[in-house]
């Protein structure tokens, strides 16, 4: 059973190391497109081999994956259509061709992505292979090789990947072929995606390509750090997903993808400059600013004594909001209330003086 965990971890590492560059190129959804278009590769390879168990079906799938990427890039280069739209058009078109071919010529064969691509990590240990006398799951062997190739690729071409992702024109001008780098990257993406689909299923693969990367993206400011943190989060997601899936008897892929989402949301909400902290800060700033504005209004001679209604009208606040603000100010000792009218205390006067300096206003 522990082999399932290994497959998850190796699959997540092999995919996410490339996912970093997909996300930075705004092409995260390419893998989603590939997960559908490979059906065409499977269908075409089946027509040639007439054998549903032929390894050529997987190879056909990988080739169509590369073709998908190539077509998307071709349409992008026309500058007539935006990146996301070209992914949408290529992906549906190739998938539709596959469906038409099946319904026209292979209606009597049960031909579908899941016939060729298992896509269930629990079955991965069943399909085994002998390597140097050890029996290991075939998926682990294939993904292990891809992990080495992908990591090697990123390590070797780190500088080129960085500059051509950040500033493609500059990369071109200083003599790097951005097209070559792009196609090398996308070929690896395509092959890795197909092999990983077979091992852990399409949805989880898309999740692996994107989720750990986006989580890391929220936390770091350097590309190298982003790659290492992505790898760490990929392992973390896989391990937690495995433990939850195993102990609660849930789908492994489902549990792992759900964990990835929860970890992303946790970081998104609770990181130091994350959503929640930012909201709290903004609210506090807004409240403090309103206090200062009310006190400054009261420090002007014509508003020396002022009623609640006048304040609420002046700042366009609701009655209850104004009451709330004034109550805090009164408790803090900045103002006093006499006969339904408010006046600044000495402390309040001082406060307005410093506020004016703080907001760079001329002293009143």
């Amino acid at each position, binding site marked *: 059973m522990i082999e399932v965990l290994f497959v998850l971890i190796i699959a997540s590492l092999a995919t996410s190391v490339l996912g970093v560059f997909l996300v930075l190129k705004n092409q995260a959804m390419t893998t989603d497109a590939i997960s559908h278009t490979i059906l065409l590769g499977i269908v075409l390879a089946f027509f040639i081999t007439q054998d549903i168990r032929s390894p050529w079906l997987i190879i056909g799938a990988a080739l169509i994956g590369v073709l998908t990427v190539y077509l998307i890039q071709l349409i992008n280069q026309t500058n007539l259509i935006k990146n996301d739209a070209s992914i949408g058009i290529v992906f549906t078109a190739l998938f539709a061709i596959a469906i038409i071919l099946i319904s026209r010529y292979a209606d009597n064969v049960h031909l579908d992505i899941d016939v060729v691509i298992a896509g269930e990590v629990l079955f991965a240990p069943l399909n085994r292979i002998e390597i140097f006398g050890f029996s290991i799951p075939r998926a682990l062997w294939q993904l292990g090789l891809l992990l080495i190739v992908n990591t090697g690729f990123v390590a070797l071409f780190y500088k080129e990947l*960085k500059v051509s992702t*950040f*500033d493609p*024109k*500059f990369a071109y*001008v200083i003599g790097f072929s951005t097209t070559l780098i792009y196609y090398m990257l996308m070929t690896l993406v395509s092959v890795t995606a197909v092999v990983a689909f077979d091992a852990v299923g399409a949805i989880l693969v898309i999740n692996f390509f994107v989720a750990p990367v986006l989580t890391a993206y929220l936390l770091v400011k350097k*590309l190298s750090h982003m790659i290492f943190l992505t790898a760490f989060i990929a392992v973390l997601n896989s391990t937690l997903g495995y433990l939850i899936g195993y102990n609660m008897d849930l789908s492994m892929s489902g549990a792992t993808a759900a964990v990835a989402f929860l970890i992303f949301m946790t970081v998104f909400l609770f990181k130091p400059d994350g959503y929640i902290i930012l909201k709290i800060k903004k609210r506090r700033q807004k409240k403090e600013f309103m206090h200062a504005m009310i006190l400054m209004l009261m420090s002007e001679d014509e508003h020396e004594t002022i009623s609640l209604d006048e304040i609420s009208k002046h700042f366009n606040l609701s009655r209850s909001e104004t009451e709330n603000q004034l109550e805090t100010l009164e408790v803090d000792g900045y103002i006093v209330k006499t006969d339904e009218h408010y006046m600044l205390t000495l402390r309040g006067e001082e406060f307005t003086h410093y506020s004016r300096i703080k907001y760079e206003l001329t002293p009143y």
Partner: protein
Amino acid sequence: MTEDIIKVKDLIVAYDEKPAIWHLNMTLQKNSITAIVGPNGAGKSTLIKSIMQLIKPVSGEIQINGSKSKKALKDVAYVPQKGEVNWEFPTTVLDVVLMGRYVHKGWIKRPNKNDHKIAMSALREMKMEAFRNRQISELSGGQRQRVFLARAICQDADIYIMDEPLQGIDITTEKLIIKTIKSLQQEGKTFLVVHHNLDTVKEYFDHVIIMNKTIFAGGKISEVWTEENIDKAYNEVSAVR
């Protein structure tokens, strides 16, 4: 004896059916600071992108240092408009400036200690030393332009080609950039700069190219920077029609 470091002969560039540049001839004088001015849509950016081989011309010839090959671009540092890169990219100021050294590294080889030293001195020159570990998304417009210029300095090229480096930046940065350009000129560098503000042309540049699809005047400021030439380029609706 003056020397032409870039020569453009009879250049025609078109997007779709409309020509953006029409029978354009120009030369860039070695060791000059040359402004390219002209109204919106005059093809200023198109001209420098053609020189950088980012656009394929319909016809014409471009020579850099007497050579037409792509290798000649190694002597040119290109400073694009600020908006053309992904500023959310996870990288620091020093990292971006170091990219200027990549041109001397070729494939696979990484920048070394010496490259770091050169990058740091370029940052110092642009007064961005204190920001070296900042993520680039945290920079203001003027600071971003300084980073681009530091990257170009780091490239240690002979020719600097800049696309509106003074657009939308603060006056301090503008003065600093001009000061740096002038001191690099002392070291023998050449500058070709797309410029928008006609009021500062005389103060900042020594040569000017006035264009609108084609060249209306080009040469020393003292000789060609006249009301008449400027009016011609800016009032002509299109030189092509």
